[in-house]
């Protein structure tokens, strides 16, 4: 090579090397920018650490009517330092947010780094504000829980507060399933130092379909409210169940609250008294005593006893509520006239061992296993307990001296209605998650009494309605029902002679029960007796249920068979 050609060659090589170096430098610079300075763009719903909160599952009734849903609302805020034209911004915001202009102007001129202008606006308002493209304004999305039916089934649903914490009812019990699983995004490096992007999408919450029927729930709440108001009771509870399956068709308490607002004067309104509070069931419990005795064979439907108006058990006199002696009395009359002497006679015949064994078999003093939060088991003093007294065998037989939840009491009644089989009460009928449907099947707990004993008790309860508890008599239908009036234990000790808990429980049609109802009124002032205070509420609910469930009169229904 000549010297000139060599020099030319070197120049060309140098130029090529410089060009390549520039390209490499540009590539290295871009890499540095991507990997060091520019963070990946945030994804919607991302919280600082790269996790995504999933949408909470919705709650529906058995027919698919919406009871609870999560929606997104926006909190409008501003960074006053970044706002260029405060007056115009205040004018426009005042119109859109429907707030006084002066209030907004004060906030924008406050000198704070961030001010919140309005919470919980809809997407249309947020989109409109975003379309202005004014600097310094921001709309932060936030998930809120809506209960579109207001106070309907509030005690069953529970609620989710502004911080997203579930409390009471189905919301708390199924919080994990409703909440879903958060997703995440992670930027990582492989072994060679290359950039990796791992994204796990959030798993949306499960939708729950309850066994509640919204229409039945509405009519029960209306009837209960009317009953509580007309009797001036402190509180009322009403439950409707399907005795064949244990499905809860309605569960109401009054007074109640609106879970959207959660503004109450008494925090106890948030609890569901049907499962979380106990009461002394009173004479409704006689159904358990008589069914147990019939099942064991210590009495039969034709058995009689002599009612002198008083019996002494464990040194304590037990008297009938009417204070009268009824002479030779049948078991059916015992139930119809709700005679305490009779039930004490039967329980002493059963014996303490067998009586309390049946009490436990009917599900008392145990959790029923219902899928609602904060269920309590109630209590029953049994022999062996230092506080148990022999007179408890008598008083427990007519539902005093023991505590049960309304749901436990109705479940026991349903066991009699269901040919002696105790079913587990449940409120969630099916779950839908990601297209998969899981149907919750009814669960049998145990056989409590024989079908014959259950049928005999049913006949007696029908007799009671026809003869004495006529408030529950509905033309065209055989209704089996029992009233209960229990005394209330005073805080000072002993039973308050003026206060009662009035209850009424029953099921229909008697030969093929489609529903069972329990109404409990706590301390009614205008009517103290179960048949007079709670009976009319039971009747109103039962009458409407026949129509709603399309149950024809017995003569039509039985003629079909």
């Amino acid at each position, binding site marked *: 090579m000549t010297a000139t050609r060599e020099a030319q060659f070197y120049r060309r090589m140098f130029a090529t090397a410089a060009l*390549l170096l520039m*390209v490499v430098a540009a590539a290295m610079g871009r890499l540095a920018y991507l990997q060091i300075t520019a963070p990946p763009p945030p994804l919607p719903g991302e919280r600082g650490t790269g996790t995504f909160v999933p949408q909470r599952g919705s709650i529906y009734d058995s027919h698919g009517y919406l009871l609870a849903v999560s929606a997104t609302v926006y909190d409008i805020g501003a960074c006053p330092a970044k706002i260029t034209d405060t007056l115009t911004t205040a004018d426009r915001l005042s119109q859109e947010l429907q707030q006084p202009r002066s209030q907004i102007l004060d906030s924008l001129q406050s000198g704070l780094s961030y001010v919140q202008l309005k919470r919980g606006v809809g997407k249309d308002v947020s989109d409109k504000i975003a379309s202005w493209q004014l600097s310094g304004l921001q709309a932060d999305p936030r998930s809120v829980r809506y209960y579109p039916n207001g106070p309907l089934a509030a005690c069953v649903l529970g609620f989710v507060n502004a911080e997203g914490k579930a409390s009471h009812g189905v919301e708390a019990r199924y919080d994990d399933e409703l909440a879903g699983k958060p997703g995440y995004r992670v930027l990582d490096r492989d072994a060679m130092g290359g950039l990796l992007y791992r994204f796990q999408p959030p798993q949306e919450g499960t939708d729950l379909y309850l066994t509640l029927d919204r229409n039945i729930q509405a009519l029960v709440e209306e009837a209960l409210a009317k009953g509580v108001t007309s009797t001036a009771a402190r509180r009322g509870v009403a439950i409707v169940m399907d005795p064949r399956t244990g499905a809860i068709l309605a569960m109401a308490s009054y007074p109640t609250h609106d879970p959207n607002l959660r503004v109450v004067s008494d925090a106890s309104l948030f609890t569901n008294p049907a499962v979380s509070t106990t009461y002394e069931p009173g004479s409704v419990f006689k159904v358990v005593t008589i069914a147990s005795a019939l099942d064991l064979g210590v009495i039969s439907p034709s058995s009689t006893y002599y009612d002198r108006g008083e019996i002494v058990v464990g040194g304590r006199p037990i008297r009938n509520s009417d204070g009268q002696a009824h002479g030779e009395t049948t078991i059916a009359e015992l139930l119809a006239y709700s005679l305490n002497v009779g039930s004490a006679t039967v329980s002493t015949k059963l014996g303490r061992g067998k009586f309390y064994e049946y009490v436990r078999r009917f599900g008392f003093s145990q959790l029923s296993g219902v899928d609602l939060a904060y269920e309590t088991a109630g209590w029953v003093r049994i022999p062996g307990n230092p506080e148990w007294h022999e007179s408890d065998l008598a008083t427990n037989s007519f539902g005093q001296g023991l505590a049960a939840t309304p749901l436990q009491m109705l479940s026991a009644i349903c066991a009699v209605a269901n040919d002696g089989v105790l079913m587990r009460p449940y409120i969630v009928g099916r779950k839908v998650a990601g297209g998969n449907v899981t149907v919750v099947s009814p669960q049998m707990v145990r056989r409590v009494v024989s079908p014959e004993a259950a049928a005999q008790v049913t006949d007696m309860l029908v007799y009671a309605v026809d003869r004495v508890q006529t408030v529950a008599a509905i033309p065209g239908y055989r209704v089996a029902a029992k009233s209960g009036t229990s005394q209330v234990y005073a805080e000072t000790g002993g039973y308050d002679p003026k206060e009662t808990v009035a209850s009424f429980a029953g099921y229909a049609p008697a030969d093929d029960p489609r529903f069972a109802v329990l109404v409990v009124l706590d301390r009614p002032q205008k009517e103290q007796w179960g048949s007079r205070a709670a009976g009319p509420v039971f009747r109103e609910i039962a009458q409407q249920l026949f129509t709603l469930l399309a149950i024809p009169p017995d003569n039509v229904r039985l003629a079909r068979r």
Partner: protein
Amino acid sequence: MASHPVVVPYRQSWLRRTAHHWYDTLGPWLCVLAVILVIALLAFVYLAQASYVARQIDMMAKLEKDRCKLHEENSALLLEIAQYEDVSRIKTEARAMGLGEPTRIEYVEVTVDDPLPLPGSRGGPLSDVRGAQLPAPQGPAFLSGIWQQFRNWIIGGTVRADQPSR
């Protein structure tokens, strides 16, 4: 002129043997060029990877945004439907339309004759019943019976279908 054969020493490197001309001419510049080329190649590989990841992030961001938007719209629609299905709203509108709760519910028992079986209808392929005819309606008496039944129901009282009409 005598040619002088090129003698390559036995111990020379592979690089010198294959690129001895260029190596002799360029010397260390060839090494520098090779190093720069390798770095450029590695840089492009990393850049492509990072760009791919960044594209994925952007795509996921867009999809997540769309998903969240659809969720919001779905929830808003569900709420709107729930408002229309509200029990108290339906009651109010029904009352405004003049509807009321029934004071009396009557059950009407309707007896319908069992349908006659089709000829040849013992199962099997359709060809077996080709040409079969459906039984003709039972004439005017059948229709008038049904009409009489509903007429009596509208006027008042229930009449069983098998009772003679007046």
